């Protein structure tokens, strides 16, 4: 396997050669000795002023070592020091063994991407050192399990710590985290508070283990406290789940497929608390049809999958279009084609989602850029699916779905909760009665006096099959008119974000999770960022307006062909350059900075 570290490191070497200059950006510290931190320095703008407090911690080990949960505790430590968090989890598609690692990055500002450089490595096995040692930007900042790893830095004698506390092997990671906390000069009170809040079982013993390790390690580099309060940390999938519930979700139906599975797990675990129904049927075809059954009976329902599973849903999607059944489809992309790289990211399914399903029918597609946006837009998608009786997609990817973000949950409440135009009771009820907007009043089976006929065939207003040419034409027009309503509705939403230096003549064009890395790079280079969040109906006029004064448009996508570029070309908008990555790994800030510079040269 080519590790992400290796690929990144190759770019990084190139990057160091190119730029030459260096500035330490470690928070509140003198420049650390040893390997300096390299940051590109140019005339515009002064990087020294935009330099922010930030820290990156990498935890590596085997699958089954609890890397992700250890990462969550470290993320909470940084959260409680006032940092905004992004946590990336990298793992191969297997259950035990292999190399897993997580990078927890904290910054003063909201983030959603990683750097190449690492400030602390917590090594649970030797491979972690071998793979990631070169990313470390200072000496001695390695904390390792002294029983298993040989390295410079400081070893935690995990086995003897556990023995001294009569603690089980599963608590070994608490020793490593305790050691890290001391090395980073994190006050014990913070460690205790975080453990008490976030370790569900045996917290007292875990704390004893952590404390014993804490007392054996020397401070190396202090992670300074930021001013901000701690915020909720949510994965993108959790954010999508909560957003959908806020938008009125009543049932979630899904067949497991990475990287959507953690949404199924989250909602299944929380179903009683949130008052929703969660079903895991036999396959994705059953998933979408079951959802359409739920919708026809009046329940706001979502399905979740990745590209392969969505292939199986495309006939059901077309049915939703024809039968005007509201349904939310969460599609979290991974590297394709076919089975591809199950646990790695990609943005190569946009073209598919835009076009999937036989025939022509309106659809809403939203692609949030981070967890906070995911809470908001998932609620909107759930709400509007019902308002317009259309399928609504929440298009995510592994970076968003399985990444953990700080969420500032203010003003993210939805406008509606799937309210719809109800039948006024005037008989006979006609499920597909025509109207200027194309939206028909809804009634469901069980409604007194209503005969509700849902139909996958071309049908008349009552829902009876028809092959009469004028009726087919009329009903097609009725369905397609909903596009216009949906597009007009989108005008009232922040369907397109213009970020960064809005006066700049160079703009980065992006969608979905790459927005985070683009905004960081744009901040460093003084560029504008244009991010359509709604990809169908595409806010074309707003896109054109946002590009006024832009002389150079650089598209950044994690696919091999530039699918957003192709979409906007249909509207007569051309991108000057494309920066594409399609090896399953998300862009790091440093890599993208280098690539954008090349594109601007």
């Amino acid at each position: 396997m080519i590790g992400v570290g290796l690929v990144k490191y190759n770019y990084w070497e190139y990057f160091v050669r190119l730029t030459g200059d260096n500035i330490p950006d470690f928070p509140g510290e003198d420049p650390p000795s040893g390997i300096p931190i390299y940051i590109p320095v140019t005339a515009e703008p002064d990087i020294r002023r935009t330099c922010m407090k930030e820290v990156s911690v990498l935890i590596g080990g085997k699958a089954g070592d609890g890397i992700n949960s250890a990462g969550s505790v470290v993320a909470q430590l940084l959260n409680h020091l006032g940092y905004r968090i992004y946590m990336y989890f990298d793992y191969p598609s297997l259950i035990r063994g292999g190399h897993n690692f997580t990078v927890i990055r904290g910054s003063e500002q909201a983030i959603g991407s990683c750097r190449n450089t690492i400030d602390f490595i917590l090594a649970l096995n030797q491979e972690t050192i071998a793979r990631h040692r070169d990313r470390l930007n200072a000496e001695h900042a390695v904390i390792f399990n002294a029983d298993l790893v040989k390295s410079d830095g400081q070893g935690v004698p995990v086995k003897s710590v556990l023995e001294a506390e009569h603690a089980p092997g599963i608590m070994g990671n608490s020793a490593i985290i305790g050691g890290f906390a001391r090395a980073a000069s994190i006050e014990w009170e913070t460690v205790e508070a975080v453990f008490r809040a976030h370790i569900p079982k045996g917290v007292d013993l875990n704390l004893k283990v952590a404390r014993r390790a804490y007392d054996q390690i020397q401070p190396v580099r202090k992670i300074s406290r930021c001013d901000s309060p701690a915020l909720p940390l949510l994965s993108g999938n959790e954010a999508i789940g909560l957003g959908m519930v806020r938008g009125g979700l009543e049932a979630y139906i899904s067949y497991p497929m990475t990287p959507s599975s953690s949404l199924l797990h989250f909602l299944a675990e929380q179903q009683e608390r949130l008052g929703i129904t969660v079903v895991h049927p036999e396959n994705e075809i059953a998933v979408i049809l079951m959802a359409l059954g739920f919708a026809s009976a009046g329940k706001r329902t979502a399905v979740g999958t990745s590209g392969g599973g969505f292939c199986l849903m495309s006939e059901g999607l077309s049915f939703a279009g024809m039968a005007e059944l509201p349904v939310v489809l969460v599609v979290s992309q991974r590297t394709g084609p076919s089975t591809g790289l199950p646990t790695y990211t990609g943005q190569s399914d946009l073209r598919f989602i835009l076009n999937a399903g036989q025939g022509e029918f309106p659809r809403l597609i939203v692609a949030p850029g981070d967890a906070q946006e995911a809470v908001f837009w998932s609620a909107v998608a759930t709400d509007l699916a019902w308002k317009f009786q259309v399928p609504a997609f929440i298009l995510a990817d592994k970076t968003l779905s399985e990444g953990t973000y700080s969420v500032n949950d203010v003003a993210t409440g939805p406008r509606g909760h799937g309210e719809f135009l109800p039948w006024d009771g005037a008989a006979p009820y006609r499920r597909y009665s025509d109207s200027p907007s194309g939206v028909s009043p809804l009634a469901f089976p069980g409604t007194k006096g209503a005969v509700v006929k849902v139909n996958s065939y071309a049908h008349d207003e009552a829902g009876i099959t028809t092959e009469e040419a004028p009726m087919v034409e009329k009903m097609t027009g009725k369905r397609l008119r909903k596009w216009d309503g949906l597009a007009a509705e989108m005008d009232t939403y922040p369907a397109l974000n213009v970020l960064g230096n809005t006066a700049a003549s160079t703009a980065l064009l992006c969608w979905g999770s790459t927005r985070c890395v683009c905004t960081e790079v744009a901040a460093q280079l003084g560029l504008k960022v244009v991010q359509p969040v709604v990809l169908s109906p595409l806010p074309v006029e707003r896109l054109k307006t946002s590009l006024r004064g832009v002389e150079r448009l650089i598209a950044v996508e994690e696919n091999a062909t530039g699918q957003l570029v192709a979409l906007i070309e249909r509207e007569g908008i051309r991108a000057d350059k494309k920066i594409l990555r399609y090896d399953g790994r998300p862009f790091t800030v440093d890599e993208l900075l280098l690539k954008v510079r090349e594109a601007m040269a």
Partner: protein
Amino acid sequence: MTGRQIITDTQNSWCPGCGNFSIQHTLKNILTEMEQEGRSLDDVVLVSGIGCHAKIADYLDINSFYSLHGRTIPAATGIKLANPRLTVICCSGDGDSYAEGLDHLIFAAKRNIDITVIVHNNRVYGLTTGQYTPTSPLGFRGKSTPAGTLEYPFNPLELMLASGATYVARGYSRKMDQLKGLIRGGIAHRGFSFIDTLQICATFFPAADYYTPRVYDLTGHDASSFEHACLKAREWDYSSDAPIALGVFYQKKFPTFDERMARKKMSREEQEHAIQDLLAART
């Protein structure tokens, strides 16, 4: 609503002599009876697949969900889970439930979802003009198998018994009174009810002359015995020549999926409170 017109004024397009007429008529009689007994037909949903049988969704003036080919059962499952008060009846074809959507049939039986599945088993694809189905006999000459099929048919009753169905019956479109009893029994049964209904296709498989002398009613059969049900189900394998039993082969009481899935409704305030708790726990 009472005394409703149960048949729509949609022009019927089944062939003269089609077995679907009797099944539709049987259902109409059942619905009329249900209404006379004081049950509202507003609470009944008919789910059909795609094929000749499925046109029944256009012909019966009750709530209907005219689904995709093979996909009656997952839609019916969703409807039942969404509103367990509804009586959900699937009219499905042998192409639908034994070929395209076989997985759903097996899983519905496994889950014991409280729906009634009537398979209009004419053992041929009618609407696509005459190809073999999973229950066509060995050697059946259809348009896709002009030299005769090379594979044995399924025995759907055996398949359903093996999958955990809690009501397994077989009827015949030319024995309407019995069929009515079997379907009513299925609707009354709490759990997954399966009624394989032998039906002639007047155009592509007019098998009445074969069925009529061979069918007999199950009498003195212990439907609570799984072993006896299996023995009776194996008597005719849908291919070789044998007597064809009609009636309820198996029935047992068992908790249903929809009962186990019941969820208490929550107010929006309670829900938002739960979300806030969750966010606090993640801080």
